Structures are given as structure tokens and as C-alpha cells.
């Protein structure tokens, strides 16, 4: 009320003529209505902005994120299981292929062995045949040789008998040569 007597409208009971505070400005009741009015507006605005827009939005985002994370973890679990299954299948396929390859190798080896045996048998048979032929030829040659020797011996014996001046008896000489050759 002192301000009114000062006559200066700019001054209040809380500010001196130099514009400095008198005591604590916090306790200046002249300013309370102003502060309370604007504070009320501020709080109402913040409350409506938060409760109508900001908080539902952030709540939704957080819930959505939690859902996404849960889903992603579930999906990751599933994928991990699938990967493990695929790995098992791969290992099984690998083992199967290896067994098959071993079987094929064994089969091929058996085939080759059989073929080889057959070839060897045939070769042996051929060799045996050739050997028999050779032996036969040798026997023939030997037989011819004996015959020739007999003839030569007969002729030689007849000549020797002739040389001794006697008439050679062909039959007797032949018998004698044959007898000698046997003995």
C-alpha cells in the first residue's frame, strides 16, 4: 500500500526505487496471483500433453519394442533349431555318401579282380596249349631224328657189309640195326 503513496506505478512493496529486491521476492504476496495463474496453465498444458499424447505414445513404443524383442528371440531359437537339424542332415548325408563310395570302390575292386583272374586263366591256358604244341613238335622232331638215324645206320651197315665183300642182306641188316638201336 506504500507504493500507492509513492505514486510510482512501477514500484511495488517488494522492489525499492533502485529496482532491487526488498527482502525475499519469494515472499512478495503482490506477485502470487500472477505466478499461481500461469503455473496452473502450465501444469494443465503439461498434464494434457503428457497424458493425451506423449505417455500413450511412449508406452506403445516400449510395448512394441518388448514384443519385437520377444518375437525376435523366438525366431532366433527356431532358426537355431533349424540350423542344427540341417547340420545333422548334412552329417548324415556325408556319412551315407562315404559308405556308398566305399561300396562302389569295393565293387569295382571285385570286378577288376574277377576280370584279372579270368585273363590270367586264359593266359595260362594259352601258355599250356603253346607248351603242348611245342612238346609235340619236339617229339615229332625226335621221332624223325630216330628214323633218320635208323636209315643212316642201315645204309652205313649195308655199305660196310658191301665193303667187306659180301652181299648185303637188307632184311637181316634192318633187323640187326633195329635190335641195336633198341638195346
Amino acid at each position, binding site marked *: 500500500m506504500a507504493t500507492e503513496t509513492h505514486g510510482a*506505478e*512501477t514500484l*511495488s512493496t*517488494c*522492489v*525499492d526505487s*533502485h*529496482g*532491487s*529486491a*526488498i*527482502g*525475499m*521476492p*519469494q*515472499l*512478495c504476496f*503482490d*506477485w*502470487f*496471483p*500472477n*505466478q*499461481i*495463474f*500461469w*503455473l*496452473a*496453465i*502450465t*501444469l494443465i*498444458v*503439461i*498434464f494434457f*500433453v*503428457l*497424458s493425451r*499424447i*506423449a*505417455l500413450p*505414445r*511412449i*508406452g*506403445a*513404443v*516400449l510395448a*512394441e*519394442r518388448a514384443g*519385437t524383442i520377444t518375437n525376435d528371440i523366438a525366431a532366433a531359437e527356431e532358426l537355431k533349431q533349424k540350423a542344427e537339424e540341417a547340420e545333422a542332415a548334412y552329417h548324415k548325408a556325408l556319412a551315407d555318401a562315404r559308405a556308398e563310395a566305399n561300396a562302389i570302390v569295393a565293387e569295382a575292386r571285385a570286378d577288376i579282380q574277377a576280370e584279372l583272374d579270368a585273363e590270367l586263366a586264359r593266359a595260362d591256358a594259352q601258355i599250356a596249349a603253346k607248351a603242348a604244341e611245342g612238346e609235340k613238335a619236339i617229339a615229332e622232331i625226335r621221332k624223325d631224328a630216330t628214323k633218320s638215324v635208323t636209315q643212316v645206320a642201315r645204309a652205313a651197315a649195308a655199305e660196310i657189309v658191301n665193303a667187306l665183300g659180301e652181299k648185303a642182306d637188307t632184311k637181316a641188316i634192318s633187323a640187326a640195326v633195329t635190335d641195336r638201336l633198341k638195346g
Partner: protein
Amino acid sequence: MATETHGAEESSSLVFHPMDQFIVKPLFGEGPIHWYTITNVTLWLALAVVCVILLMVVGTRGRAIVPSRTQSIGEMAYGFVYKMVEDVAGKDAVGFFPYVMTLFMFIVMANFLGLLPMSFTTTSHFAVTVILAMLVFLTVTIVGFVKNGTKFLGLFWVSSAPLALRPILAVIELISYFVRPVSHSIRLAGNVMAGHAVIKVFAGFAAIAAISPVSVLAITAMYGLEILVAFIQAYVFTILTCVYLKDALHPSH
């Protein structure tokens, strides 16, 4: 006090006006301050609203699953207060979450805006903090009676104490209940005002060349402390609101 400073003004440059920063002035022109006058209070309250909207609405407009930095801070504030309400006041108090969030966001923004140089700190005024504290006090009292009826008075009747002590405890409980809005508001305004006034006092000493390095260091240290206080006081105010809400919802000791 005013005469002393007049003398100082004339003799040297060492002038202390630590409380001048709290003066309410009209923003446009001069004149008496009516309840509707647009003042520096209006400006800094509006800036607090703008900051809250920037952080909580504009910052989260992307609704991203992988949040941006601003959205991340907004979500952190949401989670911080939500968890506080849930843990302290109980699961059935989450309906009060927007209300508690409003208080927290306003106080924390006003406190941090007040730390800007040349700014006006709205939360350093009792007019502001008393209204906030009275809002909480009235809410708690009304909710307590609406939810529990006369059982709410059990808050003052400590049934676990010996019968002879109960009347005495009831008086103490009653007094402490009605002192709550006082301590609730003065704690916030007092902390904020004291820190700002101390910074101003140190700033006054900076005018003396010999002391100014110490003074600047002291201002820096105080400023760091004030940043801490700005957050902690908002946190304390909010958690006490939650504690009082718990009393209103579960009055039995």
C-alpha cells in the same frame, strides 16, 4: 539492507543483489503486476512447457523401435518415473502415473532452465512450490478418503504400538501429516533459491580482481552442485509424492 547497498554502490563496485534474480517483472512495458500480466514467470513457465513438449512429443514422433537420442531420453524419463510409481506407491497407483510424471517433468525442466545464465527460476518461488505441494496434499487426502473411507484415519492410529502410546503417536502423526506440504514445498524452493543466491554472491566477489579467480572457481563448483541439486530435488519431490500416494492407497502401517 537497501541503504547499505546504496553506500556500497557509491564507494566501490562491490555490490550484492543476490535476490534480485528472483524479482517478477512484466515482460512487456512497465506497470503493476496483475494476475493475468505476462511476466518473466510466464516466459520461463512457457519455456518449461516447450521443453517438455520437445522432449516427450517431438522427440518421440518417430515412434522408432530403435530410438533416437531424444526419444531415448524421453523413454528413460518415462521408465524412471513409471518404475518409481510402481515400486514406491504400488501397482494400483499406476493410474496416477500421468499426474506424477507431470510434476516430475515440470520440476526437472524448470530447475534446469533456471540454471541458464540470466534466466528466471520459477521453482525457486514458494508461490509455485506451495501450489505443487498443496496439489499433492489435497490429492492424497481426497484419494485416501475416497478409496478407504474412514479407514484412512488408521494412518494416524498406529495399531502396532502399545495402546498407551497410541494417542500421543496419533498427535505426532497428525502434525507430521499437516507439515508435509510445508516441508515438501520449502525443500524444493529453498534448495533451488539458496544455490542460486550463493552463486550470485560469489559473482559479486568476482568484481574484486584479487579474489576473482577464486570466485570464478567457486561459481563453477557451485554450478556443478546446482546441476546435481536440480535433478535430485525433482527426484525427491516426485518420490515423496509417491510415498504419500502409497499412504493414501494403503493407509495401514
